[in-house]
């Protein structure tokens, strides 16, 4: 009986403390609520609206009819038209489209002889997207609307498919570069937020702010070591990924360094902002996790970005991890150079600047 009373005493004390820590208490309710709603609606393994380009070398009306039939499947979303397959390939490398449908010059001849009518050039690095597009290979085509029935008979698959970047369709190829984003999100945000909150909790900050050090000096000084931590982590993940999982490395090291540094900067500045909000290390950790879960589930790491509803895509766009996953897959798997990926890099740098500005404003050199 005494033992039960003591357990009860500890439980009661714990509940009292929990109810007083408003951030923790909020997290207890908010994490399941928001995350459930978000992911219940957002997670969808049926991929739709994959952005593709069309290259029509035939100039024939049949190309438009076939294109329209591909479009109504809703699997793809035609976002661009190019004149040459080379342009389409460049767009795939730059990550503007996931695939391109190319109609050859001899399209009519192929239609009449029942040969595949076009070729899909597919970015196969994401196996889920690749599978969705592969499924189109045998889609039935209705040609010659208005022509007598039986004027066109399919004998084989409707399209040929060329899977780029991951022809064996191995998941590791796509997962390993994405994992750098997840691990960096976790460590960079958590390390920085905790490192600063710890100084406040231990009273170090009270002393430091009476010294001539400026807030910005203090912050930059605290962040620099973590830049190296981040670079070491990326090296380990990609190095081991290459050695153990045979993940190809198509890009240039300089581009890899640029996109990685942009993401490290964004994550560190986010951690800095958290450190100005969180009062305890526990709170800093919880806020990090609050950001980490969507970074895993919505960023395109686990499920293709295209499979999510538009609202979830907006949330994903706000997460640095989404942009970095695009960047690092572009560099590592598709051999894209930093100059081809400017929008996402620019986004990360803008994000860094905004976070740093808010964090510096919030972190005043006083205890008020």
């Amino acid at each position: 009986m005494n033992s039960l009373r003591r357990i009860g005493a500890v439980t009661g004390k714990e509940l009292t403390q929990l109810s007083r820590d408003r951030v923790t208490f909020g997290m207890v309710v908010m994490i399941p609520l928001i995350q459930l709603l978000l992911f219940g609606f957002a997670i969808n393994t049926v991929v739709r609206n994959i952005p593709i380009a069309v290259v029509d070398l035939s100039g024939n009306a049949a190309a438009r009819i076939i294109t329209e039939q591909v479009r109504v499947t809703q699997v793809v979303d035609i976002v661009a038209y190019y004149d040459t397959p080379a342009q389409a390939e460049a767009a795939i490398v730059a990550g503007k489209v996931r695939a391109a449908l190319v109609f050859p010059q001899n399209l009519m001849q192929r239609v009449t002889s029942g040969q595949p009518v076009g070729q899909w050039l597919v970015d196969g690095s994401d196996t889920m997207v690749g599978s969705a597009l592969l499924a189109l290979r045998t889609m039935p085509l209705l040609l010659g609307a208005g022509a007598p029935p039986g004027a066109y008979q399919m004998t084989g698959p409707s399209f040929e498919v060329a899977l780029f970047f991951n022809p064996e369709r191995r998941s590791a190829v796509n997962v390993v570069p994405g994992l750098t984003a997840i691990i960096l999100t976790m460590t960079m945000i958590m390390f920085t937020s905790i490192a600063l909150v710890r100084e406040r909790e231990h009273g170090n900050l009270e002393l430091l702010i009476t010294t001539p050090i400026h807030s910005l000096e203090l912050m930059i000084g605290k962040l620099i070591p973590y830049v190296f931590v981040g670079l070491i982590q990326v090296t380990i993940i990609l190095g081991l990924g290459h050695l153990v999982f045979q993940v190809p490395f198509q890009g240039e090291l300089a581009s890899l360094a640029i996109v990685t540094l942009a993401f490290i900067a964004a994550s560190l500045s986010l951690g800095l902002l958290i450190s100005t909000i969180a009062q305890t290390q526990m709170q800093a950790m919880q806020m990090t996790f609050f950001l980490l879960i969507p970074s895993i589930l919505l960023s395109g790491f686990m499920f293709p970005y295209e499979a999510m509803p538009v609202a979830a895509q907006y949330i994903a766009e706000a997460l640095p991890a989404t942009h970095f996953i695009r960047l690092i897959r572009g560099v590592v798997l598709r051999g894209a150079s930093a100059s081809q990926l400017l929008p996402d890099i620019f986004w990360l740098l803008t994000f860094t600047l905004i976070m740093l500005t808010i964090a510096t404003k919030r972190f005043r050199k006083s205890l008020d």
Partner: protein
Amino acid sequence: MTEPAIRAHQLTRHFGDVIAVAGVDLEIPSGQIYGFLGPNGSGKTTIIRMLCGLLTPTAGDVSVLGLKIPAEAEALRLKIGYMTQKFSLYDDLTVAENMHFMAKIYGLRGTQGRARVEHLLDRYGLLALRDRMAAAMSGGQRQRMALAIATLHSPTVLFLDEPTSAVDPENRRDFWEKLFDLSDAGTTILVSTHYMDEAERCHQLAILETGHLRKHGTPTALMNELRARVVEISGPELRQVKQQVLRLPQVQSAAQQGLQLRVLLRPDVVNAVQYLGGQLANSALDITMTRPSLEDVFVASTVGGTGK
């Protein structure tokens, strides 16, 4: 007398509905050790934080070394040293690492910085402890290190917030020796404490209670003001005598100290011994006049200390 090192006028600070400091006026002369004596929650820490620009006053003016605070706080940083109430150095750094880190923050570089650190390690008896982690040091050692660090850049004004609250009496005495050395060298020292013996060592003293400055002056002057108001009663059954004494309208407080009952009377009593003798009418009691202590001053000048 030169310009005071610290001047505050109607200094006030609210935290929400709580008034932590209420209209305090201060004038702290250069080169003196000035004490803040008061219980916990009397506003000592809040005043110190406002004086070094860590907290913005709700109302009132502060100037330290002629600089307006908090507006010119940044210019003051190099001229002040601050020792926080809670140990605020790095537990997971050694003594030498902590000192070198702070020396660089204060802009002491290269050989000059190293020489300064060595000098202070020696002066504060930390040479043997230089490679000891701060976490593994005793309360007294930590305070010596904190003082060494607060004086790294030879500040003109030192703020020490209850520096010896976790220190044994012997180390406390050593610590105060160092403070007098600094004071002799011209440093103005503002030190808060709730120890009477420490307060007595200060050149001047301010008695604080619930954010109000109750009294200030030199310890001797403050004690002299109470002359003829403090008596000691010895004899049998002092517990009962105490109850009896406390019922008298002219008695402000009574506290037993060993075999004596120490009684503080209100200022309007002309002859304390005669008054008490007449009121108690107990020939077994021996009633004598005694020298007032700082504790008597504290009790006499605070509302909460009446003992009634």
